[in-house]
């Protein structure tokens, strides 16, 4: 494979309808075989996310629990998002930051960033995820570099979930100290992607799809992937995401990978959901990922309810946030009008850490070190 090959080349050989049909055609025998094999491939993954796997849920959960503990131990990593800005030039039909949503816009100043940092440090966090919309003129490379320099003294690990950037820009950010970059494709259904992203740089499907390749070439330590559940058939979308992961792991073999499971939450100006993913479906998916891939980190946010999160920590999740705010400045001067979406589980970090301990896991707030960058 030449170095110029990207996931787009793999993607072009897959047909959405054929993939969908083959997932829905999987039988109980396919699921049984997938569960009994020592190593599973993408066809097995299809069986594990298919409707045919529903009766195997308890068995899958037991297996996922065991495989996760073997690899990650009885430990749960904690992280917290820090929203730096809600300015955005894109229209995304489902997002509270969308250009066409009438909310006040705010980008944090240096002083405001540090005010947030002090609060998160006080709560005990070492791992922080920086989040923005896409406003390249005000919140671009220079803004990020400055934010990283401000925040490095406070935390042991900085990750970001911002607009896709060029390879050269990623190289600079990795050099500055960014550990992980999360870029969700939202949906791998190309036509629907265009409907949901009619305006802005984000409307370029291929540029977004090739972002993990640019990150891999730039040498980032960890890449986060995901689809937004609710836009398209979750099983088919998920298969594409797993195929993306499979491709990336082989090509950028020094990189770690993480998967997130965002289900659409109510937000200002939100779209009607095309596909609803039930709690049972999401559990099946999390277990399927773990059985398919023992090394991928599986992450959970506060979008989900307290009761769901309390149980899912045993089923394959390895990293989880708590007490998140989705408005820029939300920890030091909260303003619900600035939010991206409403979170569901609003328990404090201390409360949630106790839940983790009671479930038999050690909450881990530091698992990285600047010495390793």
């Amino acid at each position, binding site marked *: 494979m030449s170095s110029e090959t990207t996931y787009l080349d793999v993607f072009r050989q897959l047909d959405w309808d054929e993939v969908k049909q083959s997932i829905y055609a999987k039988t109980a025998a396919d699921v049984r075989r997938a569960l009994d094999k020592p190593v599973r491939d993408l066809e097995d993954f299809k069986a594990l996310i298919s409707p045919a796997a529903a009766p195997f849920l308890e068995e899958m959960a037991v297996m996922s629990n065991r495989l996760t503990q073997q690899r990650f*131990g009885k*430990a749960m990593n904690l992280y917290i998002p820090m929203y730096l800005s809600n300015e955005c030039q894109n229209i995304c039909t489902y997002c509270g930051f969308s250009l066409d949503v009438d909310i006040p816009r705010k980008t944090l100043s240096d002083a405001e960033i540090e005010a947030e940092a002090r609060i998160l440090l006080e709560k005990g966090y070492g791992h922080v995820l920086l989040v923005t919309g896409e406003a390249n003129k005000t919140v671009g490379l220079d803004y990020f570099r400055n934010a990283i320099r401000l925040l490095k003294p406070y935390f042991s690990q900085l990750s970001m979930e911002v607009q896709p950037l060029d390879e050269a820009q990623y190289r600079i950010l990795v050099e500055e100290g960014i550990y992980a970059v999360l870029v969700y494709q939202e949906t791998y259904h190309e036509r629907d992607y265009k409907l949901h992203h009619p305006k802005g740089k984000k409307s370029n499907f291929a540029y977004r799809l090739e972002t993990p390749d640019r990150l891999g070439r730039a040498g980032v330590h960890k890449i986060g992937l995901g689809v937004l559940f609710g836009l398209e058939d979750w099983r088919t979308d998920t298969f594409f995401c797993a195929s993306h992961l499979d491709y990336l792991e082989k090509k950028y073999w020094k990189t770690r990978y993480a998967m997130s499971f965002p289900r659409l939450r109510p937000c200002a100006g939100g779209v009607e959901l095309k596909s609803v993913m039930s709690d049972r479906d999401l559990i099946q998916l999390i277990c399927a990922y773990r059985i398919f891939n023992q090394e991928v980190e599986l992450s959970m946010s506060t979008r989900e309810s307290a009761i769901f999160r309390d149980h899912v920590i045993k089923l394959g999740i390895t990293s989880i946030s708590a007490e998140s705010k989705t408005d820029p400045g939300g920890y030091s001067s909260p303003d619900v009008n600035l939010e991206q979406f409403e979170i569901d589980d609003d328990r404090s970090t201390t409360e949630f850490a106790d839940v983790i301990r009671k479930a038999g*896991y050690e909450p881990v707030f530091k698992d990285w070190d600047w*010495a390793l960058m």
Partner: protein
Amino acid sequence: MKIGDKMFSSRLFTGTGKFNSNELMEEALLASGSELITVALKRVQHTLEDDLLRRVQHPHQNLLPNTSGARTAKEAVFAAQLSREAFQTNWLKLEIHPDPKYLMPDPIETLKAAEELVKEGFIVLPYIHADPVLCKRLEEVGVAAVMPLGSAIGSNKGLQTRSFLQMIIDQSTVPVVVDAGIGAPSHAAEAMEMGADAVLVNTAIAVSGNPVAMAAAFKMAVEAGRMAYEARLAQPREQAAASSPLTGFLNEL
């Protein structure tokens, strides 16, 4: 057994990862009798007052900081220097596994880093694949021990590299510590019976149903395996050897 300038009466080395609480870890490591305990630099604050570190500083315990997370020699050397300053020890478990999937150690970067760290005065214990030639090369640059793997980290699959471990044990002039993959006390005993100087066990204790009891079980297995090695094992035979059909005629001449 002596490594570097230290004498060890326990041949069971342990780690601090994957336990469901620091309290339980402390209790299990005490039950193991282990005198050398590895800690990932990335997991702790850079002070001996860190909650995890405070629990592994009993009088008989020695700290073995490791560079887990480093992908290159350069990163590992930097982490080692920081670790020496923060934890006041020049002991180091050198871990460079750029491949996050199977955590296989990089032999080239490991050799490079080992050479540099030995020059800087570290007691270096490198985690490596069970590669006999690499072990000799590491000896030549002055490492204090070698730590070849039995199988992948955390896999609990036992001594998959058995015949290569035997070669390493047979020709090594520094202590051989079998690290990674030991999933059951029987695996530890097997390594000790083969003549390994020590084993390092972490996941199998931490993730077990009862880490304190499992730590004690490993302690006994390591002692039993070593005692058996020193007592010289009887060798298994394919068949009973009663007569000498090919050379018996010599008695009749």
